[in-house]
């Protein structure tokens, strides 16, 4: 049977790549260390498959159809389409159709109805953490694209429940593999709106604190605060999926630092498998 190998979370702002050289040296060093520490922990967990939970930044979906959740079940995922991501070494990333389809089936049985794709592009949301974590080889990736970009978005409670569902589905998958979950994005940032560039450190610190309290406390805080904390902060949904996959416990902050030059409150975290 498959086993849960842990959960991880990391920020993914485009300026972490596009404007990397403009990041002040001290912040650059901390960001590098945080990504690499997460990479070391991921390597230690040695997952065969990584479920990467990320928004789709208009790479696969448009207003023609923007699903709340889409699971990638293809044997191959395409690398990032953004021209400025061409330095990412992987033009294709292997998927795991068996696990992907199993997740879809288990979701349908449980009353969740994801969209399904047999070929997804993994944009910067998924690939910046994979790149910056310094992984020599990538585990197979099952993408879970969760809408935190275009309202209306899945409820915060639903995102947490998605995490629980992933954990349950992993544990009853018959192949003997280890599966980890990586939530990407957040913490606070604001893109293309009048508050663009704002980082809400108080919100980020309180959110981090509540990942170590009950999920009700965390979710109620986020429901209250998210509408005024920048649209990018909505990506904390992906952290909630990771949190749910870990059973709502075991959160450990690896690092947090607000980085004005990349306009993101950058957070890095993991949850143990036990």
């Amino acid at each position, binding site marked *: 049977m498959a086993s849960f190998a842990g959960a991880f979370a990391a920020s993914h702002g485009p300026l972490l790549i596009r404007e990397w050289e403009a990041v002040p040296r001290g912040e650059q060093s901390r960001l590098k260390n945080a990504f690499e520490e997460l990479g070391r922990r991921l390597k230690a967990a040695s997952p065969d498959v990584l479920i990467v939970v990320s928004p789709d*930044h*208009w*790479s696969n979906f*448009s*207003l023609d159809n923007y699903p709340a959740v889409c699971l990638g079940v293809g044997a191959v995922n395409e690398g990032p*389409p*953004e*021209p400025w991501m061409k330095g990412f070494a992987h033009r294709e990333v292997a998927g795991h159709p068996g696990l992907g389809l199993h997740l879809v089936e288990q979701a349908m049985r449980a009353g969740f109805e994801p969209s399904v794709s047999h070929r997804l592009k993994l944009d910067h949301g998924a690939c910046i953490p994979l790149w910056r974590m310094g992984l020599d080889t990538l585990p197979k990736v099952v993408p879970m694209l969760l809408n935190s*970009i*275009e*309202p*209306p*978005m899945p409820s915060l409670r639903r995102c947490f429940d998605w995490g629980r569902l992933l954990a349950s589905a992993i544990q009853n998958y018959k192949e003997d593999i280890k599966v980890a979950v990586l939530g990407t994005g957040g913490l606070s940032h604001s*893109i*293309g*709106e*009048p508050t*663009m*560039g704002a980082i809400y450190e108080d919100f980020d610190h309180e959110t981090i604190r509540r990942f170590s309290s009950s999920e009700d406390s965390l979710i109620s805080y986020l429901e209250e605060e*998210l*509408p005024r904390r920048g*649209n990018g902060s*909505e990506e904390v949904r992906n952290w909630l999926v990771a949190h749910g996959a870990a059973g709502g416990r075991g959160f450990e902050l690896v690092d947090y630092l607000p980085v004005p030059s990349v306009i993101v409150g950058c957070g890095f975290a993991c949850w143990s498998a036990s």
Partner: protein
Amino acid sequence: MIGSMRDYWLSKLFYDLQSPAAVAEYRAERDKVLDRYRIEAPVRKALAENDVPFLAQRVNAYLLRYYFFATGMKDEEFKRRLRHG
């Protein structure tokens, strides 16, 4: 967060311009590209004038930011226009 009314054709234009080839053509022959979309006259005028607040009411904020990045507006200028028109 509830959904917002969107200008479909403006959104489609911004979405399509994520392709480097498409944005190169747009920069070279803007009117020719715009003629392929059912962009209403006031919206077309706003595009010509880089009227950021007007456009911001009609498209997703990420697409808006991408459009002005791709067409060469510096972030500081984009933010200034977002806030002050």
